[in-house]
C-alpha cells in the first residue's frame, strides 16, 4: 500500500475529538487534504487546529453543529470536498446523512445509506441474519406498548430475558428481567426510556445469556463484491453496556471457532450488501455457541487493536474502498500477530458514581514507549465541556502475548497524567490489575461482578503531599516580585520561610 488514493480529492471529517484526529492522520499520509468542521466550543480543539482547513458549523450544542446534516454537507461543498468521513457517533450511522451525501454527489466513507438503514433497525437486521443462516438469540418482534402476550413469549424464551429498544444503542432502554414479576414494569420503563432517547419507543425481548463474552469481527467489503474479516475483538469489559476496555485476540476462541465466526461475519456482510468497514457483533456463550447481536456500520472506537494485531490501517482501507479500489488482499493474506488491548479514557469520576467531569486540561503527559499508542483529542488547555461525549482519548498497547500486553497497559496507565479534569484512568488501572482479568475470565458482567466498588489507590500519599507543598512554595516564588517590592504583604511568606529556594534553573542541580 502507500499508493495515492487517486479518486478522492479532498475529505471533510464530520466529527471531533480523537477520531477526527485519527482520520486526519491517515488522510495526510495518503496526501489527501482535510477539512475539519467545528462548533463554537471547539474553535481551539485539536482536530480543528491540525486540519488543512477548518469550518465553523454552528453553536456548541451538537444538535446545532455536528449533528446538523445541512451544515455539514454545505461545508463539504463550499470547501470543494468530494468525500465525507463521518467517524463514529454523531451522524455516522444516520441513514439520512448518508443519503444527503449521496444526493449532493459526495462520497460517503461508509456503507450505502440503504445498508445503514436496514442494519440500524435491529429487528430488520435480525431477520436478515436469520434468513442468511446466522444464529440469532431467541427473542420477539418489537412491541410499541405492553401486551399480555409478552408473558407467554418471555416464558418460551426462558428467564432471564433482556428488554431492548428496537432503535437503541449504548444500552439505553435496555433492562434485565429476572422473573415474571418485573416483566411488565421493566417493559414499560424501557419504552419510556427509548421514547425519550430515540423518539421510538418500540422494545423487544431477547434471551439473556449467562456470562457471555462480547466478541465482534471486523469486516471489510469493497464495491466489487469482495469481503474479508480482520479477525475478532473481545469487548466484554463494559460498564452499563458501554465498552471501556477491548482486546484482540479473544482468549475464548480457538482456530476452529475463530474460522466459523469469521465466516459468519463475512456472510453477514454479504447478506446485507455491505461496502466499506463494518463490525459484526456476537455474543459468545460459555458453551462456544455464538449469536448475532448487530452490525455497526461505521469505524469502531476500538479499531486500533485490530490495526495493532493485523498491521493494517483501517482508515486507509476505508478511503481506498470509498474511492472504488478493490480490496488489496484476500482473506488468506490477513494474519494476526501478538496481542493488543485498548482502554478508553473518559472524563468522569470513578470514585463518585462515574459522574461526567468537566474542566480545563491543565496538565497532560501521555505514555509512550514500544507498542504504546495514544489516540487523543485533547491538549493542555483543552476545555472539556458537557456538550460532547466524555471520551478524551484511547490508550492502545501491543505486545507479543496477552500477559505482556496487560503489563504494558498497566505501565502505560501509570504514566498517563491528565490533570485538571478527573478521568477514569485510575479505574482502568484497577481493571487491568484485577487477577480475574489477568486470568482472562472475562464476560459482559465482569465489571459489575468484580469492580463495582473500587477504592482510590493512595500508595504514594506522602510523596503527593510533599509534591503539593513543593508546588505551592514554588508557585509562590514564581509569582513573587523582585527584591524591594514586598509592599505590605504579611511578614512571613512561604518562600521567605523556606529560605533560598533551590530551583533547578538557579542551582544547576537539574538533569
Amino acid at each position, binding site marked *: 500500500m502507500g499508493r495515492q488514493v487517486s479518486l478522492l480529492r479532498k475529505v471533510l471529517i464530520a466529527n471531533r475529538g480523537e477520531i477526527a484526529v485519527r482520520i486526519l492522520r491517515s488522510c495526510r499520509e495518503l496526501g489527501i487534504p482535510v477539512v475539519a468542521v467545528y462548533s463554537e466550543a471547539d474553535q481551539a480543539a485539536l482536530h480543528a487546529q491540525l486540519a488543512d482547513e477548518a469550518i465553523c458549523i454552528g453553536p456548541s450544542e451538537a444538535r446545532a453543529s455536528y449533528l446538523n446534516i445541512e451544515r455539514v454537507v454545505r461545508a463539504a461543498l463550499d470547501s470543494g470536498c468530494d468525500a465525507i468521513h463521518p467517524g463514529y457517533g454523531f451522524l455516522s450511522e444516520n441513514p439520512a446523512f448518508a443519503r444527503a451525501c449521496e444526493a449532493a454527489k459526495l462520497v460517503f466513507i461508509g456503507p450505502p445509506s440503504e445498508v445503514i438503514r436496514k442494519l440500524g433497525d435491529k429487528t430488520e437486521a435480525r431477520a436478515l441474519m436469520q434468513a442468511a443462516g446466522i444464529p440469532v438469540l431467541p427473542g420477539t418482534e418489537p412491541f410499541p406498548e405492553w401486551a399480555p402476550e409478552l408473558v407467554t413469549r418471555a416464558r418460551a424464551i426462558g428467564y432471564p430475558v433482556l428488554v431492548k429498544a428496537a432503535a437503541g444503542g449504548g444500552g439505553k432502554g435496555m433492562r434485565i428481567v429476572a422473573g415474571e414479576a418485573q416483566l411488565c414494569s421493566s417493559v414499560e420503563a424501557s419504552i419510556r426510556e427509548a421514547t425519550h432517547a430515540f423518539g421510538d419507543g418500540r422494545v423487544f425481548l431477547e434471551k439473556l445469556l449467562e456470562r457471555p463474552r462480547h466478541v465482534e469481527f471486523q469486516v471489510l467489503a469493497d464495491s466489487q463484491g469482495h469481503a474479508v474479516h480482520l479477525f475478532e475483538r473481545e469487548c466484554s469489559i463494559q460498564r452499563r453496556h458501554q465498552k471501556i476496555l477491548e482486546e484482540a485476540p479473544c482468549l475464548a476462541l480457538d482456530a476452529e471457532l475463530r474460522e466459523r465466526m469469521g465466516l459468519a461475519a463475512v456472510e453477514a456482510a454479504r447478506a446485507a450488501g455491505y461496502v466499506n468497514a463494518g463490525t459484526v457483533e456476537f455474543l459468545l456463550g460459555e458453551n462456544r455457541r455464538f449469536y448475532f447481536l448487530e452490525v455497526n456500520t461505521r469505524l469502531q472506537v476500538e479499531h486500533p487493536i485490530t490495526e495493532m494485531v493485523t498491521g493494517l490501517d483501517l482508515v486507509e482501507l476505508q478511503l481506498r474502498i470509498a474511492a472504488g479500489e478493490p480490496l488489496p488482499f484476500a482473506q488468506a493474506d490477513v494474519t494476526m500477530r501478538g496481542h493488543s488491548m485498548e482502554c478508553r479514557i473518559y472524563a468522569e469520576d470513578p470514585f463518585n458514581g462515574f459522574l461526567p467531569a468537566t474542566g480545563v486540561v491543565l496538565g497532560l503527559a501521555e505514555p509512550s514507549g514500544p507498542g504504546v499508542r495514544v489516540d487523543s483529542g485533547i491538549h493542555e488547555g483543552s476545555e472539556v465541556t458537557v456538550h460532547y461525549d466524555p471520551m478524551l482519548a484511547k490508550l492502545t498497547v501491543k505486545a507479543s502475548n496477552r500477559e505482556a500486553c496487560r503489563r504494558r497497559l498497566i505501565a502505560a496507565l501509570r504514566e498517563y497524567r491528565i490533570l485538571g479534569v478527573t478521568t477514569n484512568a485510575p479505574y482502568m488501572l484497577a481493571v487491568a490489575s484485577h487477577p480475574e482479568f489477568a486470568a482472562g475470565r472475562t464476560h459482559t458482567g465482569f465489571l459489575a461482578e468484580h469492580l463495582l466498588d473500587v477504592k482510590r489507590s493512595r500508595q504514594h500519599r506522602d*510523596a503527593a503531599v510533599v509534591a503539593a507543598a513543593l508546588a505551592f512554595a514554588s508557585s509562590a516564588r514564581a509569582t513573587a516580585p523582585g527584591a524591594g517590592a514586598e509592599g505590605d504583604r504579611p511578614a512571613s511568606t512561604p518562600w521567605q520561610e523556606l529560605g533560598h529556594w533551590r530551583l533547578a534553573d538557579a542551582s544547576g542541580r537539574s538533569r
Partner: protein
Amino acid sequence: MNLTFELDGETVSIDLEPAADGGYRARLEGRELAVHVHHITPVYAVFTAAGRTYRAQLAAARNAHHVAIDGEFYDFQVVTQRSRERSGGGRGAQSGGARITSPMPGKVIRVLVEDGQEVAAGQGLLILEAMKMENEIRTPVAGKVKRVHVTAAQMVMPADLLVEVE
C-alpha cells in the same frame, strides 16, 4: 513553612523546612521525610522523598494543587486561615459583609470595582492571575465596597486581604 491541605475530604498538614544538606525536611502526620528536589517547574517535579525518587505531574488552579504520581491522582485544596474560619464559622456572617482574601499566590491583573461601589452577590471584584490562568475573584455577599486593598499588577499571597465589602 507549614501548609494545610484538604485531600479526599480530610485535612493533612505538612511542615517543610530547609535542611543542612541543601534539601528539605518534611514533617507529615508525625513522620519525618528527607526531601531533595532535583527539578521543579510549575507542571513537573522530580524529587526524592524518604529515599525514593518520584516524578510528579503538577497543575495549580485557584487554591487547588493537582498532583499525579505513578497512576494516582491527588487533588489538594489549600486550607487558608480564611477558609478555616469560613468552614468553622458557618455562613452566619454573610449579611454583615465580607473580607475577601486571596485564595492563591498570584498577580492582580485588573481591579473591577472601586471604594463605595454597590456590588451584588457573585459579582466579580478583580482578576487574579496565577499559573497563567486568570481567575475572577467574586464577592460572596451583596453590599458596598468598603475598601479595595490591592492595585493592578500587585502580587498577592494566599489569605492576603483583597477587598472588604460591608
